[in-house]
């Protein structure tokens, strides 16, 4: 009967949750980064970038671990394809956070004037979308525990809907921030292009978090 233990393989759920946590920890660093941009503190920006690089690497390690431990011979409660898709979106959250930190550090971008508040509001809400995404992924083990029971599925679906609402809000915040940016685009000159890129990336954090949720919604509906 020792074979029974071998038969029950390592569930991918724990590592998936671990990876989402690592990715969201990356995204969280965007808030102190924005504070450093507002303070105009280049040393703090550089330190934040180094920290995000480190965290992104840690998330990548978990990702590779998951990919190499998900052989086709495993019969899983969730489709392999779906999990790998979700993993990619989770990975994008960490990647985008890293892109943001790199650009801010390389160009030493300081936040001043009318753009400050819209930028900060967008960043805070986008990170909140990631946190909600993490909450959703944290339900994966409960989904399996209940064998995808109706009650649990409904619970997860309402959490995903909440995630969708947060993401819609970030769209509106992005719109406000872009308008603030374009109002001062003449005085910023070519830098406005990079600020625009930065805003899009910050909004992307929420976008990828929502995609994690939407992919999971398809998965639980199966």
């Amino acid at each position: 009967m020792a074979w029974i233990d071998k038969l029950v393989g390592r569930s991918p759920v724990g590592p998936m949750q671990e990876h989402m946590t690592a990715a969201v920890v990356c995204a969280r660093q965007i808030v102190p980064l924005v504070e450093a941009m507002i303070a105009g503190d280049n040393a703090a920006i550089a330190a934040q970038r180094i920290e995000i690089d480190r965290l992104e690497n840690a998330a990548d390690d978990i990702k590779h671990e998951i990919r190499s431990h998900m052989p086709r011979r495993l019969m899983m409660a969730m489709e392999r394809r779906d999990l790998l898709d979700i993993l990619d979106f989770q990975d994008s959250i960490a990647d985008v956070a890293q892109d943001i930190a790199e650009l801010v550090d390389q160009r030493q971008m300081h936040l001043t004037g009318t753009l400050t508040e819209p930028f900060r509001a967008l960043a805070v809400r986008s990170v909140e979308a990631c946190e909600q995404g993490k909450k959703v992924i944290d339900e994966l083990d409960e989904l399996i525990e209940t064998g995808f029971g109706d009650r649990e599925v409904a619970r997860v679906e309402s959490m995903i809907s909440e995630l969708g609402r947060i993401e819609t809000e970030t769209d509106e915040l992005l719109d406000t921030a872009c308008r603030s940016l374009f109002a001062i685009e003449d005085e910023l000159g070519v830098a406005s292009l990079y600020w625009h890129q930065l805003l899009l990336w910050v909004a992307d954090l929420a976008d990828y978090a929502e995609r994690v949720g939407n992919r999971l919604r398809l998965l639980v509906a199966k």
Partner: protein
Amino acid sequence: MNLFLDIPVAIWIAGIVAIYMAWSIGANDVANAMGTSVGSGALTIWAAILVAGIFEFSGAFLAGGHVTDTVRKGMLDMDLMSNDQLIWGMLAALTSAGTLLLVATRFGLPISTTHSIVGAIVGFGAVSIGPEAVKWGKIWSIVASWVTSPLISGTLAYGIFQLTRSLILDRKDPLARVRQVGPFFFFYVFFIIGLVTLFKGLKHVDIDPSIQESLLYSLGLGLFGALIGTVLLRRAQAGKKDPGQRFSQTERVFVVLQILTACAVAFAHGSNDVANAIGPLAAIVGAVNEGATGVVSSKSPVEPWMLAIGGIGIAVGLATWGYKVMETVGKKITELTPSRGFAAELAAATTIVIASRMGIPVSTTHTLVGAVLGVGLARGIGAVDLRVVATIVASWVSTLPLAAGLAIFFYYFFKGVLS
């Protein structure tokens, strides 16, 4: 033929190999089912061994007769076989199965004792007399049961898991529900054990209640079980609430139910696997007695003392070696949580006990594998490693010719040495 010199030797060898087999069956198989309960801290190792030992022995002694009869005389045409041939053959079957068991334990191969015994008996039957000595109809029904028993237990496990899902897990308050619903499962297990044991099952100890009596007593036993279950489930500590793991408390109480199903597996295992050790021994003792007294004993039921020896052998194996297995299993972090273990074990135990009652030797491990797959298909397990299934299927196909070949070799060996 010199009775006084030759035959005691045969019994002597058969007895040693049979006891080794019983010991080994107890050492390896049972301990795993109990291991998880030990690991969760719900039972101490010695309590687990005691409980498993009692159920294992009861299974072997009270419900082990049917399969033992099948192994002893059900697969070959006894009328075509002389007592000597039967003695050499059954010795060969025991030695062959014992050797394979040694190899399996040594190299960690999933070889089923049941399959090796059946393969070995067919093997020596076919060479000692000829293929016409083998009751092929019976053999095919046994082989078919090796396919159907995992299928049945898988289907049952799927259903039982859905039941625990809708009755307990996917509820507003699963912790309260497990305490409420749990006693019904206790009732079910005790009722089935009662029914299997009582209804025409105890002829060998001269107890033969009618079907009404059997039902009545089983009902009483079931209610008694439900009472025990109610008390145990109420007393089970759920521990602290963990907001991140909303089901951890429920699972901790589920351990009580898993102990129950581990007992059920122990009973079922005893009732089916004791035959692998005792069936051939019983055949040899019967043939020796017949040779000595002239009384045809192959028609009389298996003697209770032999089942008792088998049961004790299994229990001793459990106590002397099983605790090591329990320690290892208990320490390992298993992905099979108590609620899944419960569903799989209840399904497997039910399937095996029914097979035992019908006198069909099945493999406990294979039945459990089928059950785990069933829970997996119900999306209740994170990941099931299908390679293990392939390994087990491959070993089951290869065990038969291997056991038969070995048995043929040992048959000529014993024939040469003992005649």
